[in-house]
């Protein structure tokens, strides 16, 4: 046995997992080597210190609760059996059943509470108990008040209409005057231009006649002088 072999057996020996023959051999070998003996004592001493480590026990005991059995759930409860027979099983059926139940309860409640349901100009009316009498027609005071109100509204409306018509007529008259003045100015300018043009034409014509006359006279004078 070598020292490494002995060290490999230390852990088994320290915790009593070494068989008897190997234990005797190891103890004999250790007794002959002081360094191994000291090393084993250190390991043993470390182990004895570890034994002092305190520990805390759990505060409460854990318990696993047994899940409720399906058979007990259905057979042991007569109410569950009854409801499962009466009520629809599908979600669609349950929804329809719930709506029908609600409508039935609604009408039952209406029957017991004299519920009245009506539709008028102001919307839908839902009332319970005795219905208050509805007043039909107007009183004389209300009719007079309505006539006065209508007359006032008509007078105001006519007044506003007349004012608006007057304003419109004034605007149209001013527009007409303005248009006529503009037309008169344009006509006058046109006549002046025509007159000016005529004068210029006459002046040019006269000038040309004078030149023609001078030319004829010159030709005559020349002819006479030549002869």
């Amino acid at each position, binding site marked *: 046995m070598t020292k490494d072999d002995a060290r490999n057996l230390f852990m088994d020996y320290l915790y009593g997992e070494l068989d008897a023959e190997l234990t005797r051999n190891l103890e004999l070998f250790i007794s002959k080597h002081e360094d191994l003996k000291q090393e084993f004592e250190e390991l043993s001493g470390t182990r004895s210190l570890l034994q002092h480590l305190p*520990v805390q026990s759990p505060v409460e005991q854990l318990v696993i609760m047994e899940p409720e059995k399906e058979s007990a759930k259905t057979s042991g409860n007569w109410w569950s059996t009854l409801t499962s027979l009466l009520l629809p099983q599908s979600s669609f059926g349950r929804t329809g059943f719930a709506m029908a139940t609600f409508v039935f309860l609604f009408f039952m409640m209406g029957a017991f509470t004299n519920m009245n349901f009506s539709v008028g100009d102001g919307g839908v009316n839902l009332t319970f108990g005795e219905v208050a009498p509805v007043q039909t027609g107007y009183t004389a005071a209300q009719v007079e008040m309505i006539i006065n109100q209508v007359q006032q509204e008509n007078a105001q409306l006519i007044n506003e209409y007349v004012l608006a018509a007057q304003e419109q007529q004034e605007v149209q008259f001013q527009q007409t005057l303005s248009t006529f003045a503009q037309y008169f100015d344009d006509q006058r300018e046109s006549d002046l231009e025509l007159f000016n043009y005529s004068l210029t034409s006459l002046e040019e014509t006269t000038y040309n006649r004078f030149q023609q006359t001078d030319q004829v006279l010159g030709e005559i004078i020349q002819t006479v002088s030549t002869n």
Partner: protein
Amino acid sequence: MEDAQLVQDFLGGNHQAFNVLIKRWQDKIHHFAYRYFASSDDAAEITQKTFIKAYQKLNTLEDTSKFGSWLYRIANNLCLDELKRAGRKKSTSLEALKTAPQTEMASPADGKLIRNEALVLLHKALLQLPNDQRMVVIMKEYEGLTFREIAEILDESENTIKSRMYNGLRALKKTFDSWNINKEVFSYD
């Protein structure tokens, strides 16, 4: 009644058999987790999760005679998961512990105080071990499992487990020496 029989009863529909198993193993799993984290809250949480997982997965246990080892394996995996989940927090606290505390051998009147302090340091020294060594030391020293059982639980060879145990004890010895923790400290009562 043996664990294997209780497991069979539970698989046969007797839920109370599982409560018997809980009663039998709760303390051990709690102690295991408490020594691993040095926290009652963490230990309680790991214990609860261990039994919930065992309840859900018990039908996957092939050899019912190894229920204990199987339970420790679940607890061990949950401890490692917890370390990963809160790794930063745990490692920070462990780093803080690496500063050597001052323990003075005072008068015998302070003996009880010194002993209490030494007990705290003992746990701190254990927490300073690497996870794989700490797990083996706890399983061997406190849970009393054989090296073969630990090897099965951690899915390692027996020699690897013994090597981790040896190195763990050597590391603890160094820490105890540096913090002046010795058997005289615990002789005060």
